[in-house]
């Protein structure tokens, strides 16, 4: 009955209720869209970066200060399997990340060499989707993949051979010629022009480093539980020479950039929430003021003040729910569209993104967190706004209220 009463009261003044719902609708719509584009841009940037680095890395303690192969780890499959079996762990991959000089004919340039286990990583790096020509490499392959930018630089393609000249493990030289199996479009232009992907086994042989990796890259199911996952990993790897680092520790400048970007938008969001707040407060103020007589009657006939406050609270909850629902329903198709059709960035903003090594696109996020966060903030506003009628009703003198 209380809910029925609240629902009918909402529609007593249809125009005012519609205006209130509209104010919530537009604020939720704009807040959702803004957060979708902002969060989506960072989700995309992070997923691109993290696919290469992992969200947590297991390294030798010396590697961070001096990232060379000599500071790598000697790992065995049983350790990897053990880590893989921990809660919240989606994947643990073995990597050698190094630099090498690459040459073809009379041209040469520096390359980023990623050695990995292809069968483990194809779905993480989505190499199959990024293959431009040729084929992917297998775990036992003797060939390599190169970035499209590098292929253009050397004017080479599938079937050609590339020379890699670098340093191996503990002073050994690492020189060799490798056939190109495929060309991939990966990351930014800068990355694409210097990327070489090689099977881990081939790289370990090439560098005279059997069983050596520069890091184990860890991919959790839930990236919000990084710290607890790191602790769980630490309990299994109790070695003073091994260090665990989250992406936030490895890339503090990225965290700062994210905070700076989101910080600016907080002001805009505050303005939107203020609009919602005043919209609801205005309605509650009117609903309270014009119904003092009725409140007096209800308290007179035996209605507890608390219950009366609950009915008013239900009325504002219903109004807010309708606004949130309408705003969310209207924003979702737009968010979904920009999720499927990212906006390409241009000019300085695009250059700035590329400097960080991100793709210069804005992809809308459709994360449920966005809808839940907005609904949560509006509900908080409703709670705060309802303090006013609760105070008015608690102080209500029924005789005076009915005299008015």
């Amino acid at each position: 009955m209380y809910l029925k009463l609240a629902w009918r009261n909402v529609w007593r003044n249809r125009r005012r209720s519609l205006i209130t719902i509209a104010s919530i609708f537009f604020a939720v719509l704009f807040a959702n869209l803004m957060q979708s584009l902002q969060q989506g841009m960072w989700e995309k940037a992070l997923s691109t970066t993290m696919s290469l680095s992992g969200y947590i890395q297991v390294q030798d303690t010396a590697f961070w200060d001096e990232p060379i192969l000599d500071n790598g780890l000697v790992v065995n499959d049983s350790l990897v399997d053990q880590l893989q079996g921990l809660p919240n762990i989606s994947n643990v991959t073995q990597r050698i990340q190094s630099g090498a000089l690459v040459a073809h004919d009379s041209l040469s340039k520096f390359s980023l060499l990623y050695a990995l286990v292809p069968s483990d990583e194809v779905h993480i790096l989505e190499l199959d989707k990024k293959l431009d020509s040729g084929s992917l490499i297998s775990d036992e392959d003797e060939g390599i993949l190169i970035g499209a930018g590098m292929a253009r630089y050397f004017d080479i393609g599938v079937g050609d051979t590339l020379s890699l000249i670098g340093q191996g493990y503990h002073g050994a030289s690492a020189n060799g010629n490798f056939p190109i199996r495929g060309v991939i479009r990966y990351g930014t232009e800068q990355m694409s022009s210097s990327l070489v992907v090689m099977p881990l086994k081939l790289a370990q042989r090439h560098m005279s480093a059997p069983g050596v990796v520069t890091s184990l890259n860890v991919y959790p199911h839930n990236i919000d539980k990084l710290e607890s996952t790191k602790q769980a990993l630490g309990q299994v790897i109790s070695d003073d020479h091994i260090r665990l680092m989250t992406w936030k520790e490895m890339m503090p400048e990225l965290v700062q950039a994210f905070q700076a970007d989101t910080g600016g938008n907080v002001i805009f969001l505050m303005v939107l929430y203020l609009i919602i707040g005043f919209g609801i407060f205005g309605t509650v103020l009117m609903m309270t003021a014009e119904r003092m007589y009725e409140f007096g009657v209800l308290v007179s006939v035996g209605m507890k003040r608390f219950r009366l406050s609950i009915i008013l609270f239900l009325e504002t909850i219903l109004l807010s729910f309708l606004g949130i629902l309408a705003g969310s329903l209207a924003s979702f198709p737009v968010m979904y569209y920009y999720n499927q059709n990212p906006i390409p960035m241009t000019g300085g903003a695009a250059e700035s993104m590329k400097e960080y090594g991100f793709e210069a696109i804005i992809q809308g996020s459709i994360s449920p967190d966005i809808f839940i966060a907005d609904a949560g903030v509006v509900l908080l506003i409703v709670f705060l706004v309802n303090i006013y009628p609760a105070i008015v009703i608690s102080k209500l003198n029924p005789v005076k209220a009915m005299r008015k």
Partner: protein
Amino acid sequence: MAVIEIKDVKKIYYPGSEIQVNALSGVNLTIEEGEFTAIVGPSGSGKTTLLNIVGGLDTSSSGSVNIDQTDITRLPENKLIDFRLHHIGFVFQAYNLIPVLTAKENVGFIMLLQKRPEQERNDRVTALLEEVGLSDKMDKRPNELSGGQQQRVAVARALASKPRFVLADEPTANLDSRSTGDLLDIMLRLNQEEGTTFIFSTHDQRVIDRARRVVTLEDGKIVSDVRQG
């Protein structure tokens, strides 16, 4: 058997100031079960103030109001609201029905507050609306009813909680003569057949003529207390 015992009740507004008003100056009154009592007097005589104090809506400056041996002037706010809900029925001059509820829902609302079972609520609401001659208007909202019909719904609502007595403040003030007659017929029938105690304030001579007891107030004092016909 006395339902209400009012002893030396005084009500002073703005005490100690230059504009002090003695709304009630030591009122003593006993209302017996089953009485049909009119409180009459000129404007400002204290009729509404007395009814508000008896109904627990206002506080007295001194004195006591015993209802079934409970001095309601000493009850804390929450208990007083509960007391009103279970012991007193109210009929207001302006009907004061909840505009968004139907006649049936308005009458049942008090019983809902009393947490009575749904079946009991439905049965009693139907019976009461039949009693006041509105069985065909159960699903109408107040704005679809005439003033007289709204006041009959208000009477049914006042009786829904099975109160010890009904307080009615100028119940016929906004009604035409025919509606007034109909309402009085209903109230008298409920009084005679079901023994419901009614206390009402009024200026209306037609109402005064049909009351069994007429208590006259002037300047906050009872100046006459007459039992008639």
